């Protein structure tokens, strides 16, 4: 399965949107945090986990999803939220903690929720697994179409919830896909120091779930693997497990000194930045010309600046609204 030109254009534009969005957030996050870095300060407080480098996973998978399909993401959710079609203005406003945000400022960057496109997050490792499996169960019980995808990190595959949910999904033959983003780090702990097997796709065998490993952070290969899994799910053939080799270009969170990285790793990763690589391949293969790419990039920039403007110009929430929306 290869992506059409239109799909490739969407994938590239979405990757660029995510990257520009995060580059902008990164700058604004540091406002008020220099020279002294205190997480509590600045227009965007709290932890900030950037996904730059991991955009191919989000677009390669979400290219196959529709609005009605379900996605659960993690503490590092921006790329997936954007690829799933979460409203960028309201997402930016949530990250800024504004009243116009997706949750009115209650959730922040680790807790993005958008029912319009069936998107949710969990800041607790692997805890997107259960809800995604449950959503798949709900569709099956209601006889409604839809696929549920849980994105997790490679570190999350060592958490009980991953294994319990995989078994459930297989046992009940649910339209569920677990996508593991293997950026090879769980904060400061390397995958090889935390995981007894080199690749998590083999763990699918424990539950009779087909597993594949996609190398190279390659949008085309990810698209293909996800296409197969989504087709299986839509055909009622049950769950799939995909692990994708990807790269975290930033620290675990902003402010991370990254002293645990081997020397030269960062430079090597930046040399393999998937966005320029995709751009080049689109040109080389004639899937887009320079003018088309510029158009996609300009549109991405525009969406990002509109979203940031929207967030910046939105009002802060009323403090006492902290005590609303607790119960339905």
């Amino acid at each position: 399965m290869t992506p059409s030109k239109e799909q490739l254009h969407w994938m590239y534009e979405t990757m660029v949107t995510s990257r520009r969005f995060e580059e902008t957030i990164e700058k604004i996050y540091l406002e008020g945090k220099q020279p002294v870095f205190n997480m509590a300060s600045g227009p965007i407080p709290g932890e900030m986990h950037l996904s730059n480098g991991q955009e191919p996973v989000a677009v390669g998978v979400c290219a196959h999803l529709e609005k009605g399909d379900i996605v659960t993401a993690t503490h590092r959710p921006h790329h997936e939220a954007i690829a799933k079609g979460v409203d960028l203005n309201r997402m930016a406003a949530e990250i800024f903690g504004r009243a116009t945000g997706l949750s009115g400022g209650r959730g922040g960057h680790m807790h993005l929720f958008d029912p319009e496109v069936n998107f949710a997050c969990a800041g607790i490792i692997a805890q997107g697994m259960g809800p995604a499996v449950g959503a798949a169960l709900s569709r099956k019980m209601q006889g409604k179409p839809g696929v549920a995808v849980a994105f997790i990190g490679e570190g999350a595959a060592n958490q009980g919830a991953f294994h319990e949910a995989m078994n459930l999904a297989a046992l009940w033959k649910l339209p569920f896909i677990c996508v593991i983003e293997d950026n090879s780090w769980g904060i400061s702990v390397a995958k090889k120091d935390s995981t007894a097997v080199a690749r998590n796709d083999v763990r699918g065998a424990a539950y009779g779930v087909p597993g594949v490993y996609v190398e190279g952070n390659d949008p085309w290969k990810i698209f293909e693997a996800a296409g197969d899994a989504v087709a299986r799910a839509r055909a009622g053939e049950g769950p799939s497990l995909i692990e994708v080799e990807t790269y975290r270009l930033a620290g675990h969170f902003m402010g991370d000194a990254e002293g645990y990285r081997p020397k030269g790793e960062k430079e090597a990763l930046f040399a393999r930045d998937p966005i320029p690589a995709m751009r080049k391949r689109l040109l080389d293969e004639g899937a887009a010309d320079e003018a088309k790419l510029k158009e996609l990039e300009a549109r991405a920039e525009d969406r990002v600046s509109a979203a940031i403007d929207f967030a910046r110009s939105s009002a802060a929430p009323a403090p006492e609204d902290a005590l609303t929306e607790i119960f339905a």
Partner: protein
Amino acid sequence: MTQSNERKLTIARAMAEAIAQEMRTDPGVFVMGEDIATLGGVFGNTRGLVEEFGRERIRDTPISETGFIGAAVGAAQDGMRPVVELMFADFFGVCFDAIYNLMAKNTYFSGGKFKVPMVLMTSTGGGYSDAGQHSQCLYGTFAHLPGMKVVTPSNAYDAKGMMTAAIRDDSPVVYMFHKSLQGMGWLGTEQGASVHTPEEDYTVEFGKAKVVREGRDVTIVSLAMGVHHALKAAAELEKSGVSPEVVDLRTLVPLDRDTIRASVAKTGRLIVVDEDYHSFGVSGEVIASVVEHDISVLKAAPQRVTAPDAPIPYAREMEQFFLPSPAKIVDAWGRMKAA
């Protein structure tokens, strides 16, 4: 007042020093947790340990809390003294069975034949917009469940002595350290938490609250970060001629009810400051300790300055509205006087 021989440590360093000293003398002590080796702990409390003791005794774990906390229970029962870290108290949900059904109960179930000498250290607290899965205190949740001691240091001196006592204790100890007291610059640190801390090893006895400021008119009882809010509020109230006494609980289990009662018997008024949720928790327990003992000592209804019964919000405006502060304690005094 700076002493010439003063040795100010942050809580993070005080914790690491206590662990290192115990590890030097007791080969059974070892540490497990996420990012505690190479990184030295997200909150700095295991910094330097892997360099001295190596990876056999300082173990970075997978993100498998049920697995490694359960493993600590088994190792403790088999003669080791594990110190394990649950990075944020908020994460207790993925591993609570190992904590309250195993760690806390195996001594009892075995008729006292199995000891579970382990320390579970975990971070608490908000104030830096980390939202509702990374900012909770959950003091009441842990303290509610019998079978484990629960301690909450407010300064480096106590932090070191309590860690040493916790490691030497034959019972399981939940050691809850507040992020804003750690001395990690990126969390913005309460300066009052970094105090003189002797180099030689010593213990701080569990079950002994401390009067950290003497006064006549009102007793402010608190723990961890709240103690610093209380001290600031007391300094403010003093300006208007009020003389508050501040009690640092230090240990939740066992709770030093005598010190609370004695202080309130003297002042006749009680304000409890707790960053944990309002209902079913520490603040209610402290008030009950007084009123069920002798209600006649009270000159006014007790007041509570606590987090409301809601998830902790992200936005700064909402979170600041939500959390206890010195100003809210001063307000509580105002309500008490008016009442």
